[in-house]
């Protein structure tokens, strides 16, 4: 009986190994789920920035996203509130493996300005989210390692290939097996201390795509926190690539003004 048992295991072994995905596969799946759902997508975002003393600032904006050739994507961010930044807009052309193109539109100054490629780990409009959190971090920038697996989550440790390019020494991401969505990312400094956390607080399935509808980024050193609440999420709306051009900065597309 014992012998059969071993034989049974030996037979099954290759199959089990195949079933357990590699770390690279897991992060690729998570990246897809988090940033590439549908051909395109749109959402309204209500952003609340909490300072260390409990004060808050509110921003409201709409995001359009379009998947283009390869893994590349285009984003259009249009501000609605507060009223003094109404109509302010960002345009991002994300190039996987290369520098992104970014433009800024400041309506009150009638000003369109290109932003030179640079550090993507800078605050997105003063919040605790980075530009990179909005558009996604290149998978090829880190070495991924499966640290732990539970019944419903994978824990991936990510170590940057170029440690000087980032402020963290490594970060770990919990990925939900059911949705493939990353649900929590924790960033550690060079002393191995946790200093930053980004987490998905609420997930809903919209048009078949599990979607994070509430995300929180926390700066544990400064004691600040930003909550993004997503509404009116839609996928596959047939956005034209033409919307993601400088021309539409001055004249925001109907998709965001409506």
């Amino acid at each position, binding site marked *: 009986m014992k012998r059969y048992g071993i034989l049974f295991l030996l037979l099954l072994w290759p199959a089990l190994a195949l079933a357990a995905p590699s770390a690279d596969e897991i992060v690729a799946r998570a990246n897809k789920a988090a940033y590439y759902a549908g051909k395109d997508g749109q959402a309204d975002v209500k952003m609340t920035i909490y300072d260390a003393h409990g004060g808050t600032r509110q921003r409201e904006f709409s995001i359009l996203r379009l998947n283009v050739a390869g893994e590349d994507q285009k984003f259009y961010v249009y501000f609605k509130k507060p009223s003094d930044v109404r109509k*302010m807009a960002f345009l991002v052309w994300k190039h996987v493996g290369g520098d992104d193109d970014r433009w800024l539109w400041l309506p009150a*100054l009638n000003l369109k300005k290109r932003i030179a490629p640079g550090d993507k780990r800078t*605050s997105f409009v003063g919040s605790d989210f980075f530009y990179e959190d909005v558009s996604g971090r290149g998978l090829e920038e880190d070495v991924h390692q499966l640290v732990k697996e539970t019944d419903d989550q994978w824990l991936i440790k990510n170590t940057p290939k170029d440690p000087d390019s980032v402020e963290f020494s490594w970060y770990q991401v919990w990925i939900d097996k059911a949705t493939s969505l990353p649900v929590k990312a924790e960033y550690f400094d060079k002393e191995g201390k946790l200093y930053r956390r980004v987490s998905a607080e609420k997930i809903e399935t919209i048009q078949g795509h599990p979607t994070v509808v509430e995300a929180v980024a926390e700066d544990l050193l400064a004691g600040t926190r930003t909550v993004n609440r997503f509404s009116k999420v839609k996928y596959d709306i047939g956005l034209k690539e033409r919307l993601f051009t400088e*021309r539409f900065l001055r004249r925001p597309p109907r998709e965001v003004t409506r």
Partner: protein
Amino acid sequence: MKLWLTGFSMKYPRLVLLLVLAVTVVFGWQFPKVKFDNDPENMLDAHEAVRVFHHQVKEKFSLYDFVIVGVSNEQDADGIFNVGTLDRIDRLTKQLLSLHRTADGAVAVRNPDGSDRILDLTPESGWQRGLNVAFQHDPNRLFTADGKSALIGRELISPSVVDNLKQAAFGSLKLEYLMEHPPTTRAEALQIRDDAMGNPLYKGTLVAEDGKAICLYLPIRDKTFSYNVANLVRALTADWPNSDQVHITGLPVAEDTFGVEMLVQMATSAPLAMLAIFLLLWIFFRRVRIIIAPLMVAMVSVIWAMGLLIGLGYDVHIMSSMIAIFLMPIAVADSVHMLSEFYDTYHLYGDKRGTMRKVVGHLFMPMLYTSLTTIAGFASLATTPIPPVQIFGLHVAFGVAVAWLLTMTLVPAYSMVFISEKSLQKLQLQRDAGKPSGLNRLLEGFGRFSYTRWKLILGVTMVVMVISVVGISRIQVNDNPVKWFTADHEIRKADAVLNRHFGGTYTAYLTLEPGVETAPTAADLQQALVEAAPHQLPEQWRDEIKTFSADLNDLPAVPDIAAFVEEARALAKSYDQRLLGDWRALADNIVYLDPAGLDLKTLARRLSALPAGQAALGRQLLDRLQGTGAVGDALIDAALAIIDQRQGRGFVALVDQQYAALTAPLFKRPAMLRWVEKLQQALAQDPVVGKSSSAVDALKKASYELQYRVDRSAAENQKRFAVPDTVSAVAQVFTQLEGMKKKDTLFHLVTRDYQEANLWVQLKSGDNKYMEQVVRDVDAFFVANPPPFPVKHAWAGLTYLNVVWQDKMVRGMLWSLGSSFVVVLLMMVVLFRSPLFGILAMLPLTVTIAFIYGLIGLVGKDYDMPVAVLSAMTLGLSVDFAIHFLERARQLQRELGSWQAAATEMFKEPAVAISRNALTISIGFTPLLVAPLVPYRTVGFFLATIMAVSWLATLFLLPALLTLFRRKAFGETAEQSLEEKG
């Protein structure tokens, strides 16, 4: 009654000695509980309004105390901006940022290769180490209790970690750190210089305008870390070449270093004072056994006073660290007086018990009163509003009381047990064998002089008084904690170098917040709209503007502006729809056109398919586009450009803009920001201010970089280095600044709601008088240039706090001087039971105080903390001589029958005792003269001077005055006086 204490002590000397020992052990037991506090901020009560405000400001704008590390290079042609120095600065920055505690608790920073560099900041000298143990100073304390670094890394200011906005390729804007990477070529190094100089927030703050120095600002979690942080920086830069000079300064470092050195001072000065007194007494009495008694009195009273202070739970502060040194010379005074008389008169009685009784008998009252007046002088410090000064005054007063009690009990008891009659007789024999001492002869000469030349003495005194009053009128109230160090101290030198290169290392914060402003009403908005419409809307809408204004009037009345703006916007929308609706729709249709294969012909076809209104406009558009030859994207852009010209801004935009202008937070309003700009320009003109920084500087810089265009002239671009014209434009530029690489740095200068602003004012000197000058200048600016909106302003920052407690100190001291004068005068009147003698007793000290303060005024020495503290106690100390003198003079006059005879006797034993007393106290304070800290030197010098002057004043002025007033004072008749003259 007078002799009860002494009698008891001579009867049960061993019991008294045992009791004193027991109590001393109890007080000494408290010592290990000692806690030190070297924060001058504690000169103000923790609940003091300005201190509370200071902390609110720090909290509100996330401000921290800084250790300022300056690096200067005067040798390289490019100054600090050479590859080597910048690389070292970058490395230092990263090391400081990586400060952490290893698993086994050691201090470590990270090397460039990622490995740990373990540091041990324990000083090499065993003496220093011993002191650190004694004063519980851990040189490696660089972490909070929960292991956080003493430095707040994310707030550190260094070229490697401050944001910079700059132009990059293709007219794009680059956002990076000023020194993103250490330069590898000269050109890169110079680029960093130019970038820094182009940013008003960095020029004069981070980098010196002469390019020869850079300042790193290290924010610390608590001021008490500053001394150790300074040492850490010294350790990390120890291997730097000589061309790179490192200077560490800033008020927190100065204050913390002072605290540390103060303890060292305390540990050295007090024993030195003890030694000096010992030597002096030895010269007087030549018998160790004899002089042990006064030394015991001094030591025991210091132990009791300090034990009480520690036992009551008070921290040893800058002031209380001086208790020992103050108390010792004063404490020995009475016993020196007593012993002096005891040995001088022993030969008359030949029995120590009897001699002691006799001596105490006639010294009891003067000693009681001299002690009481000294106590009154110190206790009067309790009336000052400065807690550490109160504690100091009360504990010294307690110590003086203890010293009196011990003189009455311990000294006689000691004499009974440890000094044999035989040794006294031997002493007497030696004494008889010797000639009269120099001191005796000198004093007898003084006596003759002051009796015969009394008119001259009074004349000279008058002259001195007049000069003193002139001096006093010139006194300058000023203090500067950095100047508490001697000129050759490292901190003073660093301070001088950095303030030469930079805008100044002394920080004050000028905060601006909205004053009482009536909230804007619906009527205000309506009025603003009616006024602005003709200016902001196209000329050809003249009629529409008129009807719009009229329509606004007809809108249903609503309570508040928020409701009204909705109505107005709806109305404006209908106007826009009518006037611009078709243009907008047309533009929207064109912007969505597929550029592929688009030419004029296809465009015409697409336009004609639009609704009639748009189609009509489309035909106008096509006319304009004829002959441009544009196709595809270019054609769309050309069409949109034409529409832009026609379309104008519209009524809704007008409503939004006016509403924003009325309701915007104070520091998003262009008028307010321009006023701040003007205030900063005025500050820049102020010779005392090196530099001021505000959110407006950041705004102007960002506005310039955002709007910079390669195709514009430098002058045209420079015009954009300004506050934008509208609230929205300001808000949109600020939004860019909020999202920099280093998040939230803007909010050190303005609150997140843009309602309050903080001007960082850097002063070239920490002298309080300069800070006061700036405060006055700003007040004057407010009066001459009223801000466009009601604004309240207030000051914070350590430099300003020092002004506040200085002010309290000066007022407090004046009050305590006045009150103790009155109290001592009353005591004198009671003691002598004569108003005349009371006033006479006050005169030498009045002359002394006037002379001392006159001197301070004349030599231009600032009236600072130590000088202020001196004023009140001077009184209690210098009246002592007068008491002894007058008391004995009266006794002798009674015994001998005439003042002339008494005067001769006065300059024998009584004058010797007074002189010994004066010398003891003066000498006791002299160790302070070699102190490395200026306040101690000041105290030492002035106390010695006070003793000397009041001794002279007593010995010359009092006999002269007694001669003048002898009839009134002694009731001598005219005959007696005549007889003397004859």
